[in-house]
């Protein structure tokens, strides 16, 4: 054993060189790919660059089983295996360990994540539930975005990208190092027009414009301690099509957009302590804020703000809706049949419609802005008890707050406590047993305990078989459980019911007693590296069930969330990464997913067959190329097939490197992207980038 023999050498005259710290300690070393207790896909910096992708969501097409769709051009919806058509609420997304799914609405705004592609070192995707390591939202998968360490970001980089579809991006960064630390400052921006036309051929309003600022610093305090801290800010505008349709007939005036101004702020501080080579811990604190300012002009009949209609809705929303949709008809006769109270109110509303100017057009501002905040504190301790036994424990405290008049009628907050522990035990060279549990207590939705256990059999250090059983929970988010959804219209064009603002009669409330969703996942897998060939293969068979599932779509008329649904996903996935030679790399992924769900909407986002294929080549003399194919059948009934080609030429002049690259994306099918409203005029897009580093 090395660790026994080396200290003995310490007195040796010929071996007592300068004292070196133990760097790759038992607590720092990770499991080899074959010994990972689950399925992992790593998108490295070479792939990120070769893909030419401008967004993290596009990169995730390289992950088997990942379903990448778009709600609009600036709203990617990414799900692993499926569910939720519009939001990735069952996946944990982290940047350097900081969770970025929104505190209140529990979605991930991929386009607004304050990280530039150029700052990403790699993305590790844990395919499968892992609440033990990543917390309660890690229901179906975990996307861990790791930025380049400041230590490895020295020098200056500048990049501009220009192309069709209004593509106009820039990136600039400066990295410096000093005796005890390193720093990276980067500024970046992104702009494009989104999709070109909607289902009826009209212009699609879904462009975006954003700017980001990012500062990352790592500092060594002494031999045992170091600090890493980051500040990230993002501001920008996301266009949204104007979708407000008046409830009442005969209203012609309307607004032009419901664009969002989005600002994201994040700061984190991590303190790493190595007590000794066998014991380390870190404490990480972070604060984040998501500001979404969204105000649009809404026009409707004045009766929309009738107190009586609001009362009627609270009494019986179906009755109220029937009345509202057929106002003109009922106003000729009498109120629709119902209880005495309903009819009494209905007659008052009809009277307002006929005689009190209720049918008059009135316009005002709807403010759907939100402000969400999160404060998070985590402590994680890693203890290597022996060469074959490692214990990881920790606790986490999180405070989430959401502020929105529209969604929550004010402010709502939640606190979460979490304890987790995991043990890695290697009883022999071939067997590895990893198990753990997480206990979580959430103020709004109670407590839960989720276990996870994995067995790896290593045929040799590069080839391993694994069997994994894990449970995971997802707490209902504030929106699902506690929504208090109503629209207040301000700045009304003419006084209505004596006011120049009014509460829209539709009010939706969350049930408040939703239970957690439960995921049970079973997995068999193989991971192998054929060193002679340079070939890495991973195969996974899975059987995942979600019960007590909250699957109702988020709509503001009669939103009734419940735990009544369930889903099941079974299938197989494989990924193959082959360095054929020093110049060629081939990469293939394929997933077959069979989904069944009690709510048909939950399987619409599952493509039965999906995958990718890539070929990266260095041609010499600075030339390189990459071709990728991405395909899935029937994501929300629409097929997706695209080939991307990137050709780049690198020129080195003294200490300066210039890279010029051209990128062509060619759709092979004629289908809209995910939804009928997402169409491009041309099936291809071309963009170019020039990058300078010195």
């Amino acid at each position, binding site marked *: *054993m*090395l*660790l026994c*023999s*080396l200290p003995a*050498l310490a*007195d*040796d*005259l*010929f*071996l*007592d*060189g*300068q*004292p*070196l*710290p*133990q*760097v*790759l*300690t*038992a607590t*720092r*070393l*990770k*499991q*080899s*790919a*074959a*010994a990972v207790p689950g399925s992992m896909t790593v998108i490295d910096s*070479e792939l990120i660059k070769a893909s030419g992708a401008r967004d993290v969501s596009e990169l995730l097409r390289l992950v088997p089983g990942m379903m990448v769709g778009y709600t609009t051009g600036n709203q990617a919806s990414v799900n692993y295996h499926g569910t939720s058509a519009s939001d990735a609420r069952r996946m944990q997304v982290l940047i350097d360990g900081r969770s970025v799914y929104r505190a209140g609405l529990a979605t991930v705004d991929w386009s607004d994540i304050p990280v530039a592609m150029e700052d990403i*070192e790699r993305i590790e995707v844990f395919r499968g539930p892992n609440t033990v390591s990543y917390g309660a939202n890690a229901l179906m998968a975990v996307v861990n975005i790791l930025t380049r*360490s400041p*230590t*490895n970001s*020295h*020098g200056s980089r500048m990049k501009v990208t220009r192309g069709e579809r209004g593509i106009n991006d820039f990136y600039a960064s400066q990295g410096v*190092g*000093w*005796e005890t630390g390193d720093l990276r400052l980067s500024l970046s921006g992104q702009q494009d027009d989104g999709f070109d036309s909607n289902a009826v051929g009209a212009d699609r309003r879904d462009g975006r414009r954003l700017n980001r600022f990012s500062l990352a610093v790592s500092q*060594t305090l002494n031999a045992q301690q170091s600090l890493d801290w980051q500040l990230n800010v993002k501001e920008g505008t996301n266009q949204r099509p104007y979708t407000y349709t008046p409830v009442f007939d005969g209203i012609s005036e309307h607004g032009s957009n419901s664009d969002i101004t989005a600002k994201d702020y994040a700061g984190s501080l991590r303190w790493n302590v190595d007590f000794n080579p066998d014991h380390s811990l870190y404490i990480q604190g972070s604060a984040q804020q998501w500001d979404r300012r969204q105000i649009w002009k809404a026009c409707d009949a004045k009766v929309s703000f009738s107190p009586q209609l609001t009362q009627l809705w609270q009494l019986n929303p179906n009755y109220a809706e029937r009345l509202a949709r057929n106002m003109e008809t009922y106003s000729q006769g009498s109120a629709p049949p119902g209880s005495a109270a309903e009819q009494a109110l209905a007659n008052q509303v009809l009277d307002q419609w006929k005689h009190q100017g209720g049918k008059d057009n009135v316009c005002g501002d709807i403010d759907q802005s939100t402000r969400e905040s999160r404060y998070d504190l985590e402590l994680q301790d890693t203890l290597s008890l022996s*060469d074959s036994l490692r214990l990881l424990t920790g606790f986490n405290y999180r405070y989430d707050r959401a502020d929105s008049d529209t969604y929550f009628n004010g402010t709502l907050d939640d606190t979460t406590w979490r304890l987790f522990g995991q043990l890695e035990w290697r009883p022999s*060279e071939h067997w590895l047993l990893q198990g753990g549990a997480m206990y979580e207590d959430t103020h709004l939705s109670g407590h839960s305990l989720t276990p996870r256990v994995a067995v790896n059999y290593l045929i*040799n*250090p*590069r080839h391993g078989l694994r069997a994994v059983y894990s449970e995971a929970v997802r707490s209902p988010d504030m929106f699902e459980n506690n929504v208090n959804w109503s629209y207040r219209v301000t700045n009304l064009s003419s006084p209505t019911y004596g006011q120049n603002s009014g509460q829209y009669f539709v009010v939706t409330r969350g049930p408040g007693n939703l239970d957690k969703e439960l995921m049970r996942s079973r997995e068999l897998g193989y991971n192998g*590296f054929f*060193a*002679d060939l*340079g070939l890495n293969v991973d195969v996974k068979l899975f059987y995942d069930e979600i019960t007590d599932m909250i699957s109702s779509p988020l709509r503001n008329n009669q939103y009734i969330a419940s735990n009544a649904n369930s889903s099941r996903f079974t299938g197989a996935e494989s990924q193959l990464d082959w360095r054929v030679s*020093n110049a060629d790399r081939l990469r293939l992924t394929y997933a077959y997913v069979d989904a069944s769900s009690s709510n048909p909407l939950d399987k619409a986002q599952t493509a039965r067959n999906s995958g990718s294929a890539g070929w990266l080549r260095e041609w010499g003399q600075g030339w390189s190329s990459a071709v990728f194919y991405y395909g899935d059948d029937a994501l929300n009934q629409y097929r997706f097939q695209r080939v991307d080609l990137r050709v780049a030429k690198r020129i080195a002049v003294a200490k300066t490197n210039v890279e010029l690259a051209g990128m062509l994306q060619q759709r092979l099918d004629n289908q809209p992207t995910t939804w009928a409203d997402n169409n491009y005029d041309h099936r291809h897009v071309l963009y170019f980038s020039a990058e300078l580093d010195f």
Partner: protein
Amino acid sequence: MGDQSRMTLLLILLRWCRGLLAGLLLAAPAWSADILLTAAQDSAGLQAFTQALAHQRPDDQVTFTPLRDLPAPSRLPSSTRLILLDLPGLDWRLQDAQGPPTLVLRISRLQARQRMGNTHPAKISLLWSDPPLERQLRLIASILPQAHRIGVLYSADSEFLLRELMQFAKPMGLEIVPQLWGDTNDSRPLQTLFRNSDVLLGLDDPQLYNPKTVKNLLLSSYAQQLPLVGPNAGFVRAGSLASTYSDQPDWLAVLDRLLDHAPAKWPHTLYPEHFKVVGNPQVARSLGIEQVDEAAVAARLAEGEKRP
């Protein structure tokens, strides 16, 4: 006389001769050698080594004298065998062209070049402390047979080793990917090298491999799943995958052989033929590499070094 009795007589004669020889040696100290060890700094390790050498050579007079107590080298008896154990000792020895035959230990190729350039002063034998490059390459070939691109960081000081390294690498089918690392505060050269290498070979160059750079070097190469071999045994403990090295027993064996010979036959420079292999099992495990069987690999390498 039968063959057997003739043989017996010969044996008796031989025994008698040997007895006489031993008696002569004991009686006449002139036949034994005065071995003088010196260094600027005394230490427990030095004392232990002196004792071990004395034990190894019972017939010789092994003494340790601190450098400050010694006269100029030319004033020492020419029959003395001088063993220098640190660089101040070498500086002292180099001040005189004349002096007793000298063995210099604990000196690396790089240190010698910095002090002496390409010159080889007479009567001085340099016994290299840095693991021989060819042996390190063979170690790589032995434990990482798939690795072909050997990334090598060098500084202006260690650049002279590259040519030799490439000469050794070529017949082994290995490609040396050299990368100048002029400013160790700038990690860009590392990233460039890591992209083009299958394994890193550390040169024993303290400007590149030192307590300040070790963390960044090992963490960033590990992040790329790239093993480091060398530069010496100390780095293996820090997180390098493996290295060859020679410890005190190895050096005692080397010295024992040299001291048996007349100083005129001592080589100008020498890498120790006795060595061991050390591996870091935890790093190997994490990189998905078979554990290094230290004894077996060392034996295999030693076998390969035997000249026909």
